[in-house]
């Protein structure tokens, strides 16, 4: 019976894959095609924002859920992406002119940092690559010294604060605290806040969410993904197997940063403004809780968690704004103490078997393998069989 288990798992795997693919396609159709028609524009914009946040959540899941690195500084990369796109939008003005806010600080020449953002392709590249490189660099400086665990988390948080301060302080460069508006700017000649542009952003978000999901799926499923899990579970052992974990961690942190950059850009155009407050400590930790609520280590969980928490936040803070923080605090506590594997984990462990037994399709129990050959157990089984 043992030789069959291998085949069975393979069969089950294939079946699972079919289910997964069809669910994803169905979701994609609902999100990209049906939803824009059904719900009003301002709600759609809200959903679009949630979906772009789900993209960061995927990035966080990649490093936290799979690699075990808890970053509390993803706001940096998120903001970098957002700023890059916002700068491009702010440069959609006649040749020779500079964005209006510059006159407030008496700046007359466009700072050199702005120059590349005239070009759309460069902007797109920049909003992916800059956050990626910044993340990789921070990661390299930290991982190289085998600083890990909470130290890493604290350092990313400190880095976040530093970027927050830097962006706040640089008025002549990027309008400091006021940030950059995108709603009043144009993209491809269309006003960014117009329904058409917004619908475009929305669909782009859905498509990118799908692509990022596939990327994360690819990264976490192969040998590379297994190595990430190995690093999470036992980094020392990985070293003794001849791998240098530093490179892997840097790469995956960089990718996660780049993903956050994409998300930030999408979020910015669907919010209408970006300013340094996006890099507040609270927001970056919140990202982590989305993943935790959904279930770390499962990509679907990251998306689900984000949507649920954000929905709860919107509905709660619309009606009782003062309660939201209590609720959020309680959420952190519950997820950590009672529901460590999140909703998806809980469903896998309890919900799914319950549901299956309800519809009478129990899964065969996976028994502890050594029991199979244990003579005592075998005898017991024979006895039970005999009684029947």
């Amino acid at each position, binding site marked *: 019976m*043992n030789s069959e288990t291998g085949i069975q798992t393979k069969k089950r795997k294939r079946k699972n894959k079919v289910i997964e693919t069809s669910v994803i396609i169905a979701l994609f159709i609902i999100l990209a095609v049906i939803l824009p028609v059904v719900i009003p524009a301002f709600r759609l914009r809200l959903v679009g924002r949630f979906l772009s946040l789900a993209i960061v959540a995927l990035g966080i899941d990649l490093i936290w859920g799979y690699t075990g690195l808890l970053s509390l500084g993803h706001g940096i990369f998120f903001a970098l992406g957002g700023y890059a796109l916002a700068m491009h939008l702010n440069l959609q003005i006649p040749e020779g002119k500079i964005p209006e806010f510059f006159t407030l600080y008496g700046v007359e020449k466009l700072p050199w940092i702005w120059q590349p953002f005239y070009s759309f392709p460069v902007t797109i590249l920049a909003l992916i690559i800059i956050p990626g490189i910044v993340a990789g660099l921070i990661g390299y400086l930290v991982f190289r010294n085998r600083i890990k665990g909470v130290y890493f988390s604290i350092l990313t948080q400190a880095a976040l604060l530093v970027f927050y301060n830097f962006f706040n302080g640089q008025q002549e460069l990027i309008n400091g605290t006021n940030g950059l508006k995108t709603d009043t700017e144009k993209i491809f000649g269309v006003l960014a806040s117009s329904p058409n542009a917004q619908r475009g952003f929305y669909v782009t978000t859905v498509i990118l969410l799908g692509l990022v999901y596939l990327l994360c799926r690819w990264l976490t499923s*192969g040998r*590379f993904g*297994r190595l990430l*899990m190995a690093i999470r579970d036992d980094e020392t*052992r990985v070293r*003794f197997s001849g791998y240098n974990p530093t490179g892997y961690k840097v790469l995956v942190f960089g990718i996660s940063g780049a993903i956050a950059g994409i998300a930030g850009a999408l979020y910015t155009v669907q919010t209408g403004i970006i300013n340094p407050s996006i890099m507040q400590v609270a927001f970056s930790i919140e990202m982590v809780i989305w993943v935790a609520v959904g279930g770390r280590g499962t990509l679907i969980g990251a998306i689900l968690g984000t949507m649920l928490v954000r929905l709860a936040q919107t509905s709660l803070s619309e009606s009782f704004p003062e309660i939201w923080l209590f609720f959020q605090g309680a959420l952190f506590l519950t997820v950590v103490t009672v529901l460590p594997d999140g909703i998806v984990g809980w469903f896998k462990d309890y919900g799914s078997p319950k549901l299956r037994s309800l519809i009478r399709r129990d899964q065969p129990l996976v028994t502890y393998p050594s029991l199979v050959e244990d003579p005592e157990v075998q005898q017991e089984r024979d006895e039970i069989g005999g009684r029947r």
Partner: protein
Amino acid sequence: MSKILEIENLTVSFGGFKALNNLNFSLDSGELRVIIGPNGAGKTTFLDVITGKVQPTKGRVLFKGKDLKKIPEYKISRMGIGRKFQTPRVYLNLTAKENLDLVCNRKKNVLPTLFGQSDHSEQRTVAGLLETIGLDKRANLLANLLSHGEKQRLEIGMLVAQSPDLLLVDEPAAGLTDEETENVGALLLSLAESHSIIAIEHDMEFVRQIANDKVTVLHQGALLCEGKMDEVQNDPRVIEVYLGEAPENIEH
């Protein structure tokens, strides 16, 4: 015969406490050496130094004639030293096959791992190894679900998958049943035909099973004696350390 490992005047101290004290040791290529000694004799530290986890305070370690000082663990591992830990350290959230596949990977840099897939020869190695360690029927089970003995064997398999020249095995029989112990012993003996092995062990019956070559006894971080199993067994110093009485006193 050429020496694969030479250790000269090795001292390791942790804040005043000398875990290893002026130790000299050498291993012929192709030899299976068993190291025994009471708890706290410095056996695990000995392995820590060879694998680069701990840096020597004094003295040096030569592997195939090359000084291992300041070389990071992963490079030492790539040079051909594989280590098995005392409690089996396998990746619990991966299947047995995936565990082996991960270690079997020939190109361990980031990009080849990301884009490369296991080629045929690697897949064959993994399949062969699964059979050698007797886990071919459990290949697709999460390592978490394996029994203790199976985990021990899996970790030994992972060592071999690394295709090292020198295997360092720390208490492979700890916590195993009699039958499992014998399995592991047979596995080690068959591996000894093509590898150099250092095995640290407590279980004397097991030591007798595998010690065809020399046995080294460590005591308080230093070499107490070295020789064939019978010689070591009857060495009064060893008996002193282990039993506190010479064998003739056992009868009363």
